[in-house]
């Protein structure tokens, strides 16, 4: 098993294309996860007992849905959501199609991380804001989000890295991307060069995101 440089040059356009597709999948699904998961995480937290939107019913319904989606293996979710994907994107293959299932999986994942980040905040700070007469929106915007920011960045990092792993799986149903390339060439055709190259790309991508996340989280923390 050796790396043949010729193969890399030959397949470079495919590698580039796959990398680009991976970026599309991650960007779209992370964008959706952020836009939906953040408010969902806030709701999961704020409906808790003793907090400003305390609501046992809402809390248990939201919690149940989040747990349910999270307990379905991604590969099954991928297949189960084919009709929905077809409805939204008009096709079931390619990076855009794969983004639908990735988004659905990432929303509850990120929402739970958001909830956990808020839970790490000293309750006293929220209480002091309540005592001062702050509105719930002010508490969210000026207490929860800023106080949880370093931890939220860690959550974003974790979500992005998990999405990279999941997006590789999306290759199974023809989602495209690096993972797809790895499976098509490396797995089905025993092409070790492509296998190694794609794995290396994934490793580098994960490392870069982790480092960037750690660094940002540290830089913005004023404690």
């Amino acid at each position, binding site marked *: 098993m050796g790396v043949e440089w010729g193969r890399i040059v030959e397949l470079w356009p495919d590698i580039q294309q796959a990398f680009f597709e991976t970026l599309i999948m991650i960007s779209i699904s992370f964008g959706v996860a952020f836009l939906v998961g953040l408010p969902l995480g806030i709701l999961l937290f704020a409906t808790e007992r003793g907090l400003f939107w305390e609501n046992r019913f809402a809390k248990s319904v939201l919690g149940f849905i989040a747990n349910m989606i999270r307990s379905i293996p991604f590969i099954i979710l991928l297949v189960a959501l084919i009709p929905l994907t077809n409805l939204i994107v008009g096709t079931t293959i390619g990076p855009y199609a794969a983004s639908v299932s990735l988004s659905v999986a990432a929303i509850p994942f990120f929402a739970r991380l958001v909830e956990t980040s808020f839970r790490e905040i000293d309750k*006293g*700070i929220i209480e*002091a804001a309540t*005592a*001062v007469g702050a509105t719930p929106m*002010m508490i969210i915007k*000026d207490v929860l989000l800023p106080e949880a920011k370093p931890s939220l960045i860690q959550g974003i990092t974790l979500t992005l890295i998990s999405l990279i792993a999941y997006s590789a799986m999306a290759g199974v149903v023809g989602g495209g991307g690096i993972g797809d390339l790895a499976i098509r060439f490396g797995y089905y055709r025993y092409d070790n060069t492509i296998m190694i190259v794609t794995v290396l790309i994934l490793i580098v991508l994960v490392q870069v995101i982790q480092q960037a996340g750690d660094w940002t989280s540290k830089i913005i923390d004023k*404690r």
Partner: protein
Amino acid sequence: MIEIENLTKTYTTKYGTVTGVDQVSLTVEEGEIFGIVGYSGAGKSSLIRCINLLERPTSGAVRVGGSDLTNLSGEQLRKARLKIGMIFQHFHLISQKTVYDNIAFALRAAGTPPKKIRERVDALLEMVGLADKRNVFPGQLSGGQKQRVGIARALANDPTVLLCDEATSALDPNTTLSILQLLKDINRKLNITIILITHEMNVVKEICDRMAVMQDGRVIEEGAVYDVFASPETELTREFISSVVSFDVPEPVLASVSGTLIRVLFRGNAAGEGIISDMLQHYGVKGNFLHGAIEYIQEKPLGIFVMELAGQPAEVTDALRYLENRQATVEVMKYGR
């Protein structure tokens, strides 16, 4: 100003119900500094948190400036809270926001226009002596400075009441004194009613006008601080007082005393030492001081002397009667042999 009526707060926990506050009634007058002392678990925090409804009372009423807070809706309660400041033992500042933003936060809660906010924050920072820390984050401040920010935040919307939950308990003695001085100044200048809870009696002695002692969720003693210090009614209160004003005589000394051991208390301006020396001159008794101190509580002197009187029993009795006639409170700790 603040009326607490039959207030009870119970908590339901996994292990059953816990009573935090048990049938407490208290009235705090406008402009006074009211201290509540008690050991850990006595229910002080529960009580003070029921005043701004951080904790909803299980039963009873809490009226601040006439209106019963327990009847208010969410938004009305929020508005009412703007006028009830609160400071905490661990300050509870937003760590990711500057000193300026922490105080501005309170003003924005009241819908203050942005231009006014700047002026007001700067004035508040000036008042608490932190003008130079305007753009610093709480993590870079000392405990005392953090509490000053807490005070500025609590006072931002000109409250009528300031609630202090162990506001100095995390601070060293000197810093404690400077924060207490600040609270006193605020009380005098702005006529803000202050309720202060603490387990340190010297805090009460330093700045409170009236006080209550809590034990097991109940108020077991209440009165003007001076009176409570001069004549505590319960064992617990006496214990608290002795942490500040000690009249204890060491056991070996007590054992060696053969005469009548008395504790004499002079209130206000009665010149204690003069009266005692008059007594010694007029009656055939010998006096031996074991302890003597003049404490200033609310700037009023309280003279406390522990002494041994030796002489004929009849003379001693007369001497004691003389002291009582001169407005002294006399307590015989041990009769002569």
